[in-house]
């Protein structure tokens, strides 16, 4: 066990300040050859450790189709993440274990319309999927992205969302909670925009959503109202984890280990879990 818990060292290639409290760290393995072997799927997560401060779970926010690096987007929230924000710069080293967990059901999504609903930092795991799908665009039909945050400053991946907006094969809708002077796009919380602006086609569509717990709750409610089946709503859960290996017991929800059986669940699976997430 102790050996499984030893991380591989990574170098920080680039630090991108996404919003005042979110940074994206572009990482490369220090040891040669590891980067090529590091194979992951959208939705999986890694354990990133700042030695001396601790270890935290982060989803990989880039796709394996973009070779040579991987991204982790980190929001300043607790002890370790503050330390990461305070002390890590380009060229510094962090430990990485992973990838762990399951992934978005890529095979199942093939030939389907995709509706991606994200909020705040919740776009990070979705970005991995979006990048993957853009790189395999022909496998999927209509592709809609709805992304919202509290203010325009809190929107992540600004450059990239612009690219997505310019991409003719994608339908990208951005929204913020409260009106701002310079903001020309939609205003309103995500579930409201989902019902009033997006008006998704229900047939042959899979919805993938991620965001703060409260947003997911209301998004799922409005999706149900719109007529989506539970099995077509896919979300990724957040739980406190320490090992990622199905041993430490923190991510237990009932008899489910989020780190092994998740973090990607359909709403159908979630309904069978005890209400402890």
């Amino acid at each position: 066990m102790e050996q499984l818990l030893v991380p591989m060292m990574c170098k920080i290639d680039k630090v991108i300040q996404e919003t005042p409290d979110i940074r994206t760290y572009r990482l490369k393995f220090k040891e040669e050859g590891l980067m090529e072997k590091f194979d992951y799927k959208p939705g999986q997560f890694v354990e990133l450790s700042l030695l001396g401060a601790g270890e935290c779970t982060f989803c990989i926010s880039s796709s394996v189709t973009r070779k040579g690096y991987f991204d982790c987007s980190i929001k300043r929230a607790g002890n370790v993440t503050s330390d990461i924000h305070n002390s890590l710069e380009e060229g510094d080293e962090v430990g990485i274990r992973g990838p762990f967990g399951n992934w978005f059901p890529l095979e199942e999504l093939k030939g389907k319309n995709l509706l991606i609903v994200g909020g705040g930092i919740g776009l990070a795991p979705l970005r991995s999927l979006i990048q993957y799908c853009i790189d395999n665009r022909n496998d999927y039909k209509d592709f809609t992205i709805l992304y919202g945050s509290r203010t325009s400053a809190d929107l992540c991946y600004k450059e990239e969302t612009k690219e997505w907006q310019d991409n003719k094969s994608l339908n990208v809708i951005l929204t913020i909670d409260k009106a701002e002077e310079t903001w020309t796009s939609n205003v309103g919380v995500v579930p409201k925009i989902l019902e009033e602006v997006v008006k998704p086609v229900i047939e042959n569509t899979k919805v993938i959503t991620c965001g703060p717990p409260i947003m997911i709750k209301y998004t799922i409610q409005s999706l149900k109202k719109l007529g989506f089946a539970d099995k077509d709503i896919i979300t990724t859960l957040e739980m406190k984890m320490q090992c990622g290996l199905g041993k430490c017991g923190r991510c237990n929800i009932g008899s489910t280990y989020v780190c092994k059986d998740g973090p990607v669940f359909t709403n159908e699976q979630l309904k069978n879990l005890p209400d402890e997430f």
Partner: protein
Amino acid sequence: MNVEIFVTDKAGLQKFYEAIIAKNETYAPVEKFGKFDFKHVSSLSECDPDSPIEKTMSAKPLFFPRSAKILKYTADSSGTTVKETDEDPLAGKRVILGMKHCDARGLQVLDKVYNWDYIDSDYQKRRQNTVVISTRCDKAGTHCFCTSLDYDVQNLDAMDVLIVKGQDGKIFIKARTEKGEDFLKSNPIDSANSKQHPASEEEMKKQYDAFAASFRLKMNYKEINENLSKIFDTPEFENVSSNCIGCNTCAFICPTCHCFKISDEKIKDSGVRYKCYDSCNNGYFTLMAGGHNPRPAKYRRWRQRAMHKFVYYKERFGENLCVGCGRCTISCPVNISIFEVVNQVAKSEK
């Protein structure tokens, strides 16, 4: 069942123990402050292999240590170097004397979680290199209920050598596994009558029956397991947990609790990362950095504990996590009994 049963007496057993300690790396219960903990011993006088169950800590720390080093690191201008940790002190060939049956069962249960998906090689190594010599208790403790759970106390695969104290000072020693057989071959019992007795088998059974009859606590495990799995939302959990002070002792001394945390100890530019025990009764156990806590209230944590022991683990791995040793009840400062709790909850209406 053509295994030889050795019959000896008390003096013979003492000699047997002494020979083991002299020849092998041996761990046995050693008393400190009125509590027995498994420690490395070099003579029989230091330890007491027949320590009472109420006062004996479980043998879990010999397989899943209270704090294990994961890595050492040093950082300098050229980067961070992760160093190998020292050799695992528990990985060598060793013998454990005086392990209780419930602890042996605990190991069997832990095997499941450590051997699914990612295999914990360190734990496995410790298990493989250990010969477990388990003595059957003469009498049940006040809080024991091992006989009423989902396993057969007499036949546990984790016990390599079984010692049973029969009537008239007769002591039966029997190897239960190949490892145990080999061990008995290399550590022969002096002055033992080593023929196979069908009668001995019977006498051992008799001892078990007397032992099983001495239990104060008995539960209908199947019914409790079924009922508990249905009543997740019962308010009874709030009642039974109201006087819990959340001290975490129960998890730390439990022979099957296996949750851990990873913590770093840092001094200047170097540090060590440890894996140490943690408890689900701790409010911070599931608290996430953003402030969201799936189990903020005490009763939710208690529910997790009780359900994990009696329902979830069974669902997932097919075994009951609680082994019925009663240690949590003995150590609880406010005398909350998990036996009482699950019985009370299982009886409650949804």
